[in-house]
């Protein structure tokens, strides 16, 4: 890389001269424990010995025991150091994180496994579970802790929901695995759109426009082009070059705010949570599915988000009592029908449940086959 430095900024010039760039991450095999180096690509089968504890058996006969623990995703270096200490003491200095923000410690013998489990239990903040037919950790975003477009907090609702579902994390008594995800706004960094249960932050008010600053902070053509429903047009307000929003066409996606900081959406009364259900990403049995709307709006209820927790508990309990073995939530709902889903959960069916966005017609019933 070459950089052109203006003037005689020697400090900057030195910095550039010694600059290391574009090296990428450390190579993967540097991070493997010995047993993985020895058995890479040669695993035969696995078994879940108890909730949170797996054994993988290799062609060589080697056995690798894994203990999975729930983690907070948002953590401090202190917490990482706690994990490192456990890994140093029991796992030869290696451990890993899962794609759902669990932590996994791996050992090669049942003796070490027992010691590891005791140490994790003693730690008090490293619950073992999240395997098989369980609710595993909630994939989530930043919320009020760090994001600039959130409609809800992320870590708080996740903590509240996982407290309520803790028994489903530490056991494997569900009909199938249940994947919950949270995204704090419609950008969906948390990829909630294909989850068994999705907690989604939504806005309900069009952006408030700061006419006195919009022209200074935003490119007006880009801002207009950013609206997927063409609700934004140029407008002159009090001699300021600005924009106007047609509130009837706004669906509060926040894309304009991403392009233009002078159009914030956040609002204590407007913002809240939508609950969606029935999505999955796996190709197992049925094809991957999108999550569908179960509840259009729940107000923000910090600090414990009671209505959201109650809604999710209701869905999960209805699923447990109604689903057949190996049925994911989406498969269960499709079998019983959405009429029955609203019956068994007691959730109200409203006009918001009828799609009026893109491809809406593909979701309307084009048959006389339905249930009373």
């Amino acid at each position, binding site marked *: 890389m070459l950089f052109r430095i203006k003037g005689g900024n020697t400090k900057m010039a030195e910095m550039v001269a010694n600059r290391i760039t574009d090296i990428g991450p450390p190579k993967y095999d540097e991070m493997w424990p010995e047993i993985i180096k020895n058995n890479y*690509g040669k695993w035969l089968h*696995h078994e879940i010995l108890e909730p949170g504890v797996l054994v993988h058996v290799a062609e060589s006969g080697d056995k690798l025991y894994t203990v999975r623990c729930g983690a907070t995703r948002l*953590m401090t270096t202190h917490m990482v150091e706690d994990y490192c200490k456990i890994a140093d003491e029991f796992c030869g200095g290696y451990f*890993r994180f899962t794609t759902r923000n669990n932590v996994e410690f791996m050992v090669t013998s049942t003796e070490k496994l027992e010691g590891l489990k005791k140490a994790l239990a003693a730690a008090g903040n490293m*619950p073992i579970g999240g395997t098989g037919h369980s609710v595993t950790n909630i994939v989530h975003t930043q919320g009020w802790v*760090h994001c600039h477009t959130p409609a809800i907090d992320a870590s708080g609702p996740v903590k509240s929901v996982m407290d309520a579902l803790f028994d489903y994390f530490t056991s494997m008594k569900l009909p199938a695995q249940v994947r919950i995800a949270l995204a704090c706004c419609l950008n969906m960094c948390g990829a909630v759109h294909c989850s068994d249960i999705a907690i989604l932050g939504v806005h309900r008010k069009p952006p408030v426009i700061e006419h006195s600053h919009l022209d200074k902070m935003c490119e007006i053509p880009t801002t207009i082009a950013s609206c997927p429903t063409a609700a934004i047009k140029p407008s002159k307000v009090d001699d300021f070059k600005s924009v106007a929003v047609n509130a009837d066409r706004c669906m509060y996606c926040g894309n304009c705010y991403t392009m233009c900081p002078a159009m914030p959406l956040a609002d204590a009364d407007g913002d809240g949570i939508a609950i969606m259900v029935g999505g999955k990403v796996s190709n*197992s049995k049925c094809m991957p599915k999108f999550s569908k709307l179960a509840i259009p709006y729940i107000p923000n209820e*910090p600090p414990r988000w009671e209505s959201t927790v109650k809604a999710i508990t209701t869905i999960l309990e209805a699923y447990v009592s109604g689903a057949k073995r190996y049925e994911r939530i989406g498969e269960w709902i499709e079998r019983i029908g959405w009429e029955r889903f609203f019956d068994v959960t007691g959730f109200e069916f409203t006009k918001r449940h009828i799609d009026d966005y893109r491809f809406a017609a593909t979701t309307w019933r084009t048959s006389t086959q339905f249930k009373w």
Partner: protein
Amino acid sequence: MAIKHPTPMLDELEKGPWPSFVTDIKRAAEAGKEACADLLGQLELSYNDKEGHWKHGGIVGVLGYGGGVIGRYSDVPNLFPGVEHFHTVRVNQPASKFYKTERLREIMDIWNRRGSSMLNMHGSTGDIILLGAFTEQLEPIFAELTQKGWDLGGSGSALRTPECCLGKARCEWACIDTQDICYNLTQEYQDEMHRPAWPYKFKFKISGCPNDCVASIARSDCSIIGTWRDDIRIDQAAVAAYAGGEIPARGGAMGQGVKLDVQKDVVELCPTGCMSYEGGKLAINNRECTRCMHCINLMPKALRPGTDTGATILVGAKAPILEGAQLSSVIIPFIKMEEPYDEFKEFVANTWDWWDENGKNRERIGETIQRLGLQSYLDALGFDPVPQMVKEPRSNPYFFYTEDEVPGGFDRDIEVFRKKHAR
């Protein structure tokens, strides 16, 4: 520095059995981190206001990189000076998120000295997310990270940090070397990751089998999903052991005592009906199998993917903004995916060329394909259409023909027409 601000709302989140992020942040605040003390204060304010308190964006970064750092400023810095600047640094994670503690501590050490000591393990795209640095610390953090062999990930309209499942490291179902593919692509496309030059973001996610543990089909512009072309391997002795209850159902996913019903749970739930179980023997008509993984998931000791392995390449997944959610669509039904992955990289180059040429600002490739049609993209790739690319053929007859496809072309003489047909 200890706890600076009362946090009665957040204190409620210290109750209950799930690990508490509040307790953890308090620990760092008590150890002297002003950023953590003030973050708790600002978060408590958000819990009272029911609105966030971070300003919109902010252009910060490290020299020569267009991405990897996301600017963040408090909108109440007078109340919480420790988080006045709270920039995010994305650090490219090692494939599959395995860590050697001494290497992970290199990052923690830098972050303790120069940052807030708060982080995400990991961000939704996969990076290690260091949360909360002041602007003047960004260059030193970058210099120290690279000195230790760590680099930044992607942000902005760039290639985002590729991510993969754990693959051959610990999974018997991995049909491709997910970690090597992830590392190889990450290294190959460093420039595309660090210097945003596209209409919008582009993501690769690599899963070793159709179970798709990194949600590649839902979350990546290009999904690489391991699969196989030959027959599922069967160990009939293990099938008998499942039937007899000696091996628990689904590898113990419902507990050790749960017995598998081979007929009901495996054969009857097969989506293609390509299996039968007679006289204690399991038979699979592999030609009719769609490799969904259900039977293999249920009997990991008895069934394994075949040995002629490779990947299916799908393109175009995204969350709903703006045109609605899309899953990836099949573009290459099967590719061997062997190092150095030249065939795949040629496909990627052609894909990016087409998207660069045709994509609008902030349009994901899935949306460009939706706007211009899958055929236009396939034409650009030079790929022949195959039934594997669609769920079903179209139910309308409104084809677009090019002039050279129809005898005589589109030009006709109205006078000639009128000689036969009165006005």
